[in-house]
């Protein structure tokens, strides 16, 4: 019973905050909205930690198999005895881990935002949206039903739209919010069809029923369309939704633009609430992905492609938040790569545990990177790295935590990123080609993160545009506390025996890696760091030289491989220009034309008829007599006798 209480508390606190702040906040809670929301979130986060303790240590003994538990369920829609939609809370290692991650990161982001957005006009709305965002993600991770996932999935989409477009007076923010919404919504179209296919072929939307009755295995054997089974089609289409939310190639175009949102929102989107939803989806439906042979390959390839692509683009960008955005895309790609490998079956446990472990550690260090970047941006009033430089003296704490996060994301032991990335690489070890590519991504990650680090905190100090304002005491607290907590989490999380908590089927999987397996990734990361230090630690001509060496490839990467332009070409020229215009012509000429022609015909006819209605009595009488006469003639001629 305790678990039910904790679980309900976790999810309902942000919902209550959203309702209260959304309804009453504008007039009554102008000043205290931030603290109220933070207080609610801290209750939620505390409940999440208690729930985790309860679930892992009281309900289950650590090191043994974890039993999934259902703490809450009610029937939302009922169509037939076998077809229904439930809402509820499903607890297993995965969902408890996500609850802890989401509520903790969200709490720290809330705390940070209390000061960061202090001067905003729509301070209370911001916190209301933030609470809604957190609630959506928390509801998503405990789903018991495919439709519950979809429901909260869309809520995540809508609240991210509200937050990315928070500065709606800026046209760029509006278009970024629209782009994020349209791209993810387009992907969700595939998701919905996937849900329907899976539900239809296995006659249930309920996750427990799906996994326990093994009907998905039977459904996977029968061919549905184009030689692929219903499960393959369903999981492929659902992965389309996941790729949209997780910003995987080729649906990643919204992610860099989403940097228009306030920086804490970026931290939340990238660390815990939105982009990891796709990874969570694949992990949650892992039994389905395992039996769909093609989808696992697609997930692997898309994951690695996105990872490599994003890493290359990140090396060329100059906007601090965009570099971080592409690094997120790269890391999420790695997670999906690991999950894909696991679903292929060869390294089932290592891939699954590694990707979830990486999701967990990445959540903390990516939130840390964004919040630290927020402090830097606040200081220099610019996102461009050229306006930064030499900040290690003026922002010592930020410098320290940023360095910790950079080391973690690069995979340097003993920080958390090393352990999680190492596990993913372990899963890839049996495929030399993919292992090589993943190593390359690893090296590139280290390079661009340290390029960013050196450009921001070392290098030549840029001339300040305006007099930097000194942080107040409350700002120090509100910025410093989340940064320190996240830095500690980043440093020590790697020592969690993660495989005991989250593993496929709940069976614990202790990760063992030999020192020989450690060497290549660490070596690759060190190479990346060394190159970054060589190029960017001091102001020099080396970066330009390096860029010139790569020539056209550099400029193509700088323009993000022209994918945005390709999309613009497809939408503007082909869809709007050709399809849209011909559809508009058809509408105007054929559809409207038919209606107009019909109207015109009736009009002409009535004009003709109008002449008869002269209003002259004798005219009518004349026609009456003519008619009567004609009738008489007809009767005379055709009478029977």
């Amino acid at each position, binding site marked *: 019973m305790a678990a039910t209480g904790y679980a309900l508390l976790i999810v309902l606190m942000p919902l209550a905050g959203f309702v209260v702040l959304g309804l009453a906040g504008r007039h009554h809670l102008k000043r205290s909205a931030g603290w109220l929301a933070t207080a609610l979130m801290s209750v939620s986060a505390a409940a999440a930690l208690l729930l985790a303790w309860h679930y892992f240590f009281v309900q289950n003994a650590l090191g043994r198999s974890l039993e999934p538990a259902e703490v809450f369920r009610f029937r939302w829609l009922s169509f037939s005895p076998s077809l229904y939609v439930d809402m509820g809370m499903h607890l297993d290692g995965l969902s408890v881990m996500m609850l802890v991650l989401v509520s903790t990161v969200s709490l720290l982001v809330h705390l940070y935002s209390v000061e960061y957005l202090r001067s905003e006009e729509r301070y209370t709305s911001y916190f209301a949206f933030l609470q809604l965002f957190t609630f959506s993600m928390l509801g998503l991770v405990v789903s018991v039903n495919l439709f519950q996932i979809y429901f909260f999935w869309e809520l995540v989409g809508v609240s991210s739209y509200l937050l990315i477009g928070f500065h709606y007076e800026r046209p760029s923010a509006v278009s970024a919010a629209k782009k994020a919404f349209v791209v993810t919504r387009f992907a969700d179209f595939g998701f919905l069809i996937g849900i329907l296919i899976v539900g239809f072929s296995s006659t249930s939307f309920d996750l427990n029923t799906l996994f326990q009755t093994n009907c998905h295995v039977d459904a996977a054997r029968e061919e549905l369309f184009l030689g692929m089974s219903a499960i393959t089609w369903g999981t492929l289409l659902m992965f389309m939704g996941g790729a949209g939310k997780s910003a995987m190639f080729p649906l990643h175009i919204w992610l860099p633009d989403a940097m228009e949102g306030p920086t804490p929102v970026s931290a939340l989107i990238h660390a815990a609430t939105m982009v990891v939803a796709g990874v969570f989806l694949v992990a949650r439906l892992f039994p389905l992905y395992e039996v769909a042979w093609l989808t696992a390959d697609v997930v692997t390839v898309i994951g690695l492609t996105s990872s490599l692509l994003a890493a290359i683009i990140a090396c060329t960008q100059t906007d601090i938040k965009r570099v971080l955005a592409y690094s997120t895309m790269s890391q999420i790609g790695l997670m999906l790569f690991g999950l894909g490998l696991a679903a292929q079956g060869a390294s089932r446990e290592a891939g699954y545990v590694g990707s979830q472990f990486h999701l967990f550690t990445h959540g903390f260090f990516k939130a840390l990177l964004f919040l630290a970047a927020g402090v830097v941006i606040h200081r220099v009033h610019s996102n461009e790295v050229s306006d930064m430089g030499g900040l290690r003296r003026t922002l010592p704490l930020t410098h320290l935590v940023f360095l910790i996060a950079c080391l973690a994301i690069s995979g340097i032991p003993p920080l958390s990123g090393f352990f999680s990335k190492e596990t993913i690489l372990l899963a890839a070890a049996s495929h030399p080609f993919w292992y090589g590519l993943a190593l390359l991504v690893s090296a590139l990650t280290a390079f661009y993160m340290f390029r960013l680090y050196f450009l921001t905190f070392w290098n030549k100090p840029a001339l300040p545009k305006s007099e930097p304002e000194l942080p107040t005491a409350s700002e120090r607290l509100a910025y410093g506390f989340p940064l320190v907590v996240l830095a500690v989490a980043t440093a020590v999380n790697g020592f969690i025996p993660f495989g005991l908590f989250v593993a496929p089927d709940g069976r614990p999987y202790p990760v063992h890696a030999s020192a020989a397996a450690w060497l290549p990734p660490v070596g690759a990361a060190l190479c990346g760091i060394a190159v970054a230090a060589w190029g960017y630690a001091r102001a020099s001509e080396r970066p330009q030289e390096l860029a010139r060496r790569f020539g056209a490839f550099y400029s193509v990467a700088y323009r993000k491989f022209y994918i945005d332009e390709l999309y613009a070409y497809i939408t503007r020229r082909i869809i709007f220009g050709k399809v849209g215009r011909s559809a508009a012509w058809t509408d105007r000429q054929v559809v409207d034309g038919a209606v107009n022609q019909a109207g015109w015909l009736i009009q002409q006819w009535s004009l003709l008829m109008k002449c008869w209605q002269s209003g*002259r009595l004798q005219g009518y009488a004349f026609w009456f007599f003519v008619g009567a006469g004609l009738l008489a003639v007809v009767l005379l001629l055709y009478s029977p006798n």
Partner: protein
Amino acid sequence: MDVLNFLLITASGLFFIGVYGFLTRRNLLTMLISAELMLNGAALNLVAFNRYRWPEELDGLFLAVFIVAIAAAEAALLIAIVLRLYRNTRSVDVSDITELKH
């Protein structure tokens, strides 16, 4: 030419004189008289057929009496209308009466 034919020709003559008058005259009173002519032409037909075809029946005569009664009522009504119209428009010309259209 027997009497019946003579009567029928007379009746149709009356009727068509009435039609002609109704269609050509603009004066409402003249049109009223023309309408009476048409009615009487029809009534004469009925009487003639009754007398020379079915002398033992009385249907045609009754019908004719009805027509006379109705014609009297109709004439009274129409003359009242014409008088009202004349009061309002100072005219009994049918083409001047346009106010009832709407």
